[in-house]
């Protein structure tokens, strides 16, 4: 039993290392040029945002509309710190500080609202992210107001993108597989039943919400350091909806679904840049079509794993053998 667990961890590790190495080679040989790399960065940032929102909305069942707000806290905190201290260490500290601050604000918004049953969280988080945006517009001395911060030192390369994205997915996956994660899922399934099992609903909702906010802060930090320009209106209500679209499209309660949807949407929107007039129309029609044919999202609540492939290929092989014999 133990051996097989180690085996699958090893396989996962090899897959990750291979992904990293292949892209790294492509980047250094300039096959992935700056243009493609910017799509790659968008994909990675969206993966971090979508998987962390999926923890809140997909796994724990709490509807949050404030993810852009948490992202902006991470982005501005990291930007302000790296502007004062333009070193690699400054960036790492900035990213962590941004994430912590986002988690902290998440705790203060979450604690009072998550005690209530119902969709109060959606309204509270919507209000919170608007307040944060207005604050950033008006705090001229720190954030340079509506004109935005520019010239933020760029530290994001493929290595960092990979570390943050893979790190987020691994940590969230471990969280969901733990007993904490199971408690969160049970709250989504049936809050009353979960409470009568002795699960403290407020506690687990707050834990999921704060964790989600933390990773949104990380995504913001990565964003600020890659795009080296920030303005408050990047993080408006529309941005929160964009993240929600990825989560719903990928499947509520599926991390791999969020990853697939983030990649798919980024590719579609990059491709559609050649048709600027029709871009949003086609994008919207595609979303409608996908949701019509797969209302549960691309992955539903299932996860993509190597065993699925194995079962599938074994099924094919068995069929073949059966046919021959």
């Amino acid at each position, binding site marked *: 039993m133990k051996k097989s667990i180690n085996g699958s961890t090893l396989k996962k590790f090899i897959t990750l290392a291979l992904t990293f190495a292949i892209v790294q080679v492509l980047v250094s040989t300039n096959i992935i040029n700056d243009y493609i790399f910017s799509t790659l960065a968008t994909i990675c940032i969206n993966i971090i945002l979508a998987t962390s929102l999926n923890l809140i909305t997909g796994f724990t069942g709490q509807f949050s509309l404030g993810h852009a707000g948490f992202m902006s806290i991470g982005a501005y905190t990291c930007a302000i710190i790296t502007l004062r201290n333009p070193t690699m260490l400054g960036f790492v500290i900035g990213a962590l500080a941004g994430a912590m601050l986002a988690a902290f604000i998440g705790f203060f918004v979450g604690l009072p609202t998550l005690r209530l049953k119902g969709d109060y969280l959606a309204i509270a988080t919507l209000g919170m992210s608007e307040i944060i945006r207005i604050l950033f517009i008006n705090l001229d001395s720190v954030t340079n107001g509506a004109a935005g911060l520019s010239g933020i030192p760029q530290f994001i390369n493929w290595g960092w993108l990979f570390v943050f994205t893979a790190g987020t997915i691994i940590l969230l996956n471990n969280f969901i597989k733990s007993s904490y994660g199971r408690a969160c899922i049970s709250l989504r399934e049936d809050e009353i*039943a979960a409470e009568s*099992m*002795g699960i403290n609903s407020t506690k687990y909702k707050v834990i999921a919400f704060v964790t989600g906010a933390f990773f949104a802060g990380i995504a913001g930090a990565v964003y600020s350091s890659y795009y080296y320009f920030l303005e408050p209106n990047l993080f408006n209500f529309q941005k929160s909806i964009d993240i929600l679209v990825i989560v719903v499209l990928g499947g509520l309660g599926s991390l791999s679904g969020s990853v697939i949807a983030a990649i798919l949407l980024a590719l579609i929107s990059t491709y559609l840049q050649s048709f600027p007039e029709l871009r949003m129309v086609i994008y919207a029609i595609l979303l409608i079509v996908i949701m019509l044919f797969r209302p549960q999202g691309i992955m539903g*609540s299932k996860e993509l794993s190597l065993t699925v492939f194995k079962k599938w290929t074994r099924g094919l092989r068995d069929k073949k053998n059966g046919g021959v014999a």
Partner: protein
Amino acid sequence: MLEITNLNVHFGVIHAIKGISLTVNEGEIVTLIGANGAGKTTTLRTISGLKKPTSGTITFEGNDITNLDARQRVKIGISQVPEGRRVFSTMTVLENLELGAYLRRDKAGINKDYQMVFERFPILADRKKQMAGTLSGGEQQMLAMGRALMSRPKLLFLDEPSMGLAPLLVQEIFDIIKDINDKGTTILLVEQNASMALQIADRAYVMETGKITLSGTGKELIQSEEIKKAYLGG
């Protein structure tokens, strides 16, 4: 074992439970019967800590538990099978049982109790890895009971275990309830199926519009003209 005195519960301005008192002694099966909307489920939810009473006291094994929250009540040995089963439908049977033992930390004991549950409900052992939502109504009821047993309750509440089940299954579920009781768990049973409930109950309370209007042993109530007329269709 459980003693409720003068319990009042409000939903906003609606006075749902109007000063009821009831006792459950150790080892008994006590049933609470009554029509829809009489306040049976509210009473159970108040005792298990999911709803706060406006006044009155609840004591369990001599300790006042009125102000404990649901979690602490599970810890001291009160567990419930909620109305409508409420299994976690996208989780497997095994994960459901695991959540039933959420507050326990004794691994060995938990593993032993899985075996206990699987022995009592062999069908669940066959469906260990199956999603709970794909089970039939009867199997879900068994799972909900197994899940509640995983917390090793001294006192088990069952809220309408016969709801939506075929008559044959209802009999089976009631046999199991009797058996759980024989093995030492005290039971408080809320039912609409009054005749079945009265047959296995040691004592019974009848609830009407938030008040207890009648009480007695199961046998007494089954004979009572009033009950026959109102609940047994006689």
